[in-house]
């Protein structure tokens, strides 16, 4: 198995694990963590694609690498917004449930 296929496997595993965590865990902070895990998996997949595109004297295709950097920044902003919403919800209600009861 080549090195990139190995990391592709790793990426697929991260996506699957993150998705499982997202579905199964009720606490919103754990869901946010799970999202970041899926995101890491998707970015890693970009990285595998970049590595496979090594050419013209470069170690990897710079376009997907740049896309990952952009994606990491956007993912951080999303995490920050989600955490802020969650903390404010907790401040207002003392609970973190997302179930629309009461």
């Amino acid at each position: 198995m080549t090195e990139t296929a190995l990391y592709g496997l790793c990426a697929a595993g991260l996506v699957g694990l993150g998705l499982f965590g997202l579905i199964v865990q009720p606490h919103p902070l754990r869901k946010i963590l799970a999202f970041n895990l899926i995101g890491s998996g998707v970015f890693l997949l970009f990285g595998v694609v970049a590595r496979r595109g090594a050419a013209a004297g470069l170690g990897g295709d710079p376009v997907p690498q740049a896309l990952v950097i952009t994606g990491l920044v956007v993912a951080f902003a999303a995490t920050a917004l989600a955490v802020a919403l969650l903390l404010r919800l907790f401040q207002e209600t003392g609970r973190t449930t997302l179930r629309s009861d009461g």
Partner: protein
Amino acid sequence: MAFDIVLVLLVIGVAVWTIAARDTFAAVIGFVALGLLLTLVWVRLAAPDVALTESALGSGLTGGLLLGASARLACSEATASDEEPGAILQLIAAVLCALMSAGLVALVLLLPQPAPTLAPQAVANIAATGLGNPVTAVLMAYRAIDTLLEVVVLLLALVGIWSLAPDRVWGGLPGPRRHADPNGLLTFIAQLLVPIGILVGIYIFWVGSVAPGGEFQGATILAAMWVLASMAGLVDAPSVSGRRLRLMLAVGPAVFFAIGLTGFATAGAFLAYPEAHAKALILTIEVPLTLSIAATLALLVAGPPERASGR
């Protein structure tokens, strides 16, 4: 190759720990560790720019954000565990996710050989940008509009976070007041690290035009230093309505837009750079941009205003 196998096993193991850990605090620690392992992975994948961003942003700032949140939410753990779905549903979810992973693995193996790539085009055109780092060329020249829109996305997330403040503290200061303990360990570490960190951040930004680095990596390090200093009580948060703060946030994207618009006249298109001055223009954009991104990232960690400002 053996190193890669060990690394992948560690990554998957830590990821399982992050999902399976009972306590949220432990899960966040796992997540930070995962970020550091992924930094190694990026180095192995010949992507040093990404490695820098992952370690500073994905691990550092995100980890700090999540640790702070899990500390404040610690008492909500007990009620949340009641809502966990039953064992059967967990099993179904596990099977579905396993199938999804297997499908992705199959697709990765089906990727075409030789892989299509834009590396030759990126290298062929880099002379026109005056840069030496192809990733920076993609971010600041070929796909500059993505970077510009992304900075606006960052600002919007900040406005969204600020909107969560109660009306009475609008315009106030984010986060609690922390007082520097002159004999404390944190204060000592901060006083030592922050000046070094600032220098490192500036260096990594500056060198990004020719070597791995760039404004996002540098800005993240600067933001992390501010967060450290703020946690140690060395600096206090600025009022979110302060004119200077608002200018600092807006100057980066504003200069980016302005130079982009001048591209209409000088090079025939929005965000085009005339070849003779490309590098100078890009640096002119990057300096205020790094400042703005650093301020935005730091404020994203700080959160919505919680204390009314002194005025």
